[in-house]
C-alpha cells in the first residue's frame, strides 16, 4: 500500500434503508481505499452490498429512505458533507459510473452523441458543436467503427456490446480520476465481454483512471484487478492483492465462493463429472442486526465464539486482511 494519500478512502460506511418492514442494513461498516490508477475488484453475491457501496460513493442513494453514515474521502474531501450542487460538479467529471444494463441506462430518444456530449457541455461549458466533436473522439477511443455516423444514431440501432462501449465513452468523456463500474460485462455475451475487458484494460493504461470494478464473476476480477475486496452481508470479509485472494484465500466464505465456482478445464483433471463445493444455507436477512460473525450460519468451521462475537478485520498475512476468528487455522487446514 502506497505511502501517499489514496484517491478514495471510504471509512466505516453504513448505508441503511428504512422500509415498512424495518431497517435494511445494506452496508454495515465498510472501509477501503483506492489508489490513483489502480483497479480494485469488489466481489460478492447478490445482496452483499457491493452495488449500494458504489451508489453511496456517487451519492446516488435517495435520502430518505436511505441513510448514510461514515466518511467517503475523495482526495481528502468528505463527499457525504457536500451539497447536492457540489456533488453534481463531481459526478461525471471526477468520478463517473458505468452501469450493468446498457439497454436501460441509455436514453432511447436521444442520439448517443447527445448523451455523451451532455456530460462535456455540463462540466466544461463547451458548445454543442465541440461536444459532438468530443463525442466522436470518445467513440473512436472505445473502438466503435464509423464513429462519425454512429454519433448521430440512437441506442436501439446499436448492439449490446456497442451500447456498453457508448456507456464507457460517456463515463470517460470528462477524463475522470475514478471510474466506478458496476457489473459492466454481466449482461454481455462472453466473446463481447472479452472485447470490453480488453478495452477497459487498454483504457486503464491510456487514460490512467482508477477503476472500482464491482462484479460477482471471479474470473473477471482475476483478469482485471490488482487488489480485491470480498463482501458478504454488507460487510467486508477479506481484502488483499489479487494474487493473495485467489491463491491463498483465508476467509471461509471466500474459499467457499472459489470452490463453488465452476472452472473451465475441469474435464482435464477428472474422468467422470465432478461435484462443485456448495456453501450450505442462505445469506442472512439484513433486516435484523447480525450478532457475531455474519457468515456463522453457513460456515463449516463455526464455533460458539463466532456466534457471539463479530470478528474484527485484521492483517493475517502481508497485504491481506481477513475478518475471521480462525483465519490462520483455516489456512493451515488447507
Amino acid at each position: 500500500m502506497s505511502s501517499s494519500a489514496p484517491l478514495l478512502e471510504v471509512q466505516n460506511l453504513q448505508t441503511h434503508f428504512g422500509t415498512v418492514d424495518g431497517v435494511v442494513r445494506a452496508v454495515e461498516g465498510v472501509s477501503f481505499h483506492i489508489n490513483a490508477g489502480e483497479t480494485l475488484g469488489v466481489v460478492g453475491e447478490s445482496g452483499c452490498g457491493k452495488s449500494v457501496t458504489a451508489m453511496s460513493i456517487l451519492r446516488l442513494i435517495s435520502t430518505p429512505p436511505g441513510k448514510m453514515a461514515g466518511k467517503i474521502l475523495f482526495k481528502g474531501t468528505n463527499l457525504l458533507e457536500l451539497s447536492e450542487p457540489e456533488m453534481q460538479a463531481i459526478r461525471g467529471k471526477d468520478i463517473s459510473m458505468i452501469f450493468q444494463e446498457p439497454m436501460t441506462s441509455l436514453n432511447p430518444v436521444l442520439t448517443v452523441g447527445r448523451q455523451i456530449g451532455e456530460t462535456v457541455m455540463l462540466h466544461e461549458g463547451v458548445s454543442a458543436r465541440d461536444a459532438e466533436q468530443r463525442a466522436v473522439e470518445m467513440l473512436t477511443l472505445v473502438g466503435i467503427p464509423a464513429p462519425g455516423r454512429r454519433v448521430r444514431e440512437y441506442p436501439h440501432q446499436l448492439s449490446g456490446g456497442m451500447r456498453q462501449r457508448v456507456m464507457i465513452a460517456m463515463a470517460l468523456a470528462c477524463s475522470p480520476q475514478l471510474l466506478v463500474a458496476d457489473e459492466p460485462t454481466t449482461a454481455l455475451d462472453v466473446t463481447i465481454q472479452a472485447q470490453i475487458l480488453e478495452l477497459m484494460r487498454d483504457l486503464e493504461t491510456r487514460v490512467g483512471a482508477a477503476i472500482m470494478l464491482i462484479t460477482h464473476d471471479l474470473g473477471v476480477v482475476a483478469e482485471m484487478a490488482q487488489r480485491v475486496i470480498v463482501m458478504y452481508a454488507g460487510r467486508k470479509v477479506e481484502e488483499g492483492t489479487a494474487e493473495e485472494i485467489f491463491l491463498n484465500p483465508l476467509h471461509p466464505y471466500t474459499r467457499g465462493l472459489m470452490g463453488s465456482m465452476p472452472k473451465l478445464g475441469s474435464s482435464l483433471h477428472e474422468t467422470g463429472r465432478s461435484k462443485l463445493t456448495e456453501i450450505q444455507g442462505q445469506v442472512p436477512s439484513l433486516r435484523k442486526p447480525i450478532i457475531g460473525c455474519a457468515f456463522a450460519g453457513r460456515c463449516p468451521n463455526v464455533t460458539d465464539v463466532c456466534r457471539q462475537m463479530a470478528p474484527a478485520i485484521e492483517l493475517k498475512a502481508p497485504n491481506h486482511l481477513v475478518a475471521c476468528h480462525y483465519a490462520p487455522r483455516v489456512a493451515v487446514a488447507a
Partner: protein
Amino acid sequence: MSNSQTPAPGTPLLEVKGLKKHFPIHGGILGGKTGNVFAVDGVSFDIKRGETLSLVGESGCGKSTVGKAVLRLYPITDGEVLLDGRRIDNLSAGELRPLRKRIQVVFQDPFSSLNPRQKLRDIIAEPIINFGLASGSELDDRVGDLLDKVRLPRDAMYRYPHEFSGGQRQRIAIARALAPGSDLIICDEAVSALDVSVKAQIVNLLSDLQDELGLTLLFISHDLAIVEHLTHRVAVMYLGKMVEMADRKTLFSTPHHPYTRALLSAVPVPDPTVKRQRIILRGDVPSPINPPSGCRFHTRCPFVFDRCKVDEPQLRDVGMGRMSACHLDVVPDTVPEANRQAAVAA
C-alpha cells in the same frame, strides 16, 4: 410408458433431424411478410437415455429455440423431432398430450415461471392432476416425495413462492418438471440467474437427480464452465447452425472449430497468475434475419479464406466422434497454407 410401441434397443430417447425454425417478419403498410428470422436453420442431434447434452452458444444462436421446438411450444418450419424413435413434430395436440408428460422444462427465471398466487402444493400437483396420475392423499404423498427429491422440507408445500429465495424457487421448478414422471427435462438457462454459491447447489442437485432417476437432460446454457461440470456431450451453436459437437472431454480439452476455440478462450479464468493466449473475436454476431453467405462465422473468423465466404461447410465427422463444420478440416490442400498454419498455431 404409455405408448404401445416399445422402441428398438439402442434408439436414442430424443432425435432431432434437420430442425429448422424460421420466424416470419411482418411489416410494410399491409403488414405483409417482409422476411424471416432464421433462428434455427438445420440442426440435428440425438440424446441417449440418461445422458446430458448441452447446447451452448451466445445470445441469438438459436439454442433456446431448439429447446422450445422440441417442447412443441411452436410448430417447426422443417425437420423431424423423434421421441423413442416416434415422430412427435407432426402429431395433433390430442395425440401429443400423453407424450407431454414425458418432456418437461425448467426455465431461467424462477421469479416469473412460478405463479405467485399458488401454493407450492398446487404448483407441483398441477401436472399430476392434469395427467390424472394421482388424487387425494396419494397426491399429497407424491408432492411430498418430490419436495424430498429436490431437498426442500415437506411443510414447504403450504407456502407461496415469494417466501423462497431464487435457488429454492428453482428447486420448486425442478420438482414441478419431475412431477409427471418425465424422462426428458429441458433446462433452458436454468442456473444462469442464480448466484455462484446457489448455482453450485442446483448444478449438483441436477446431476444427483439424473443419477438417481435416470433422467435425460437437454441443458441449454451460455455458461461454458457450468456445462463442463455437468454434461456428457456438448453441441456448439452459432447463428442457427451447429458448428461443433463432441463429448465433454474432447470438446473442452481440444476445441476444434475456430468459434469453439474463441468461445473457450474468452472465458475469464479465476487465477490472476494465468495469462492466456486469447482469440478475441472482432465485431458482433451478425443478424439472423440476413445471415452471412457461406460459413456463417466467416465475418468474425480469424482464419477466414475465400472459400468460406461462398461455400457453406457441412457438419461432418472429423475423428474421435467429433463433428465439426469448418473448411479447415475438410480439404486441407485447398486451404491457403498461411491460414492453416495460423489455425494450427493458435
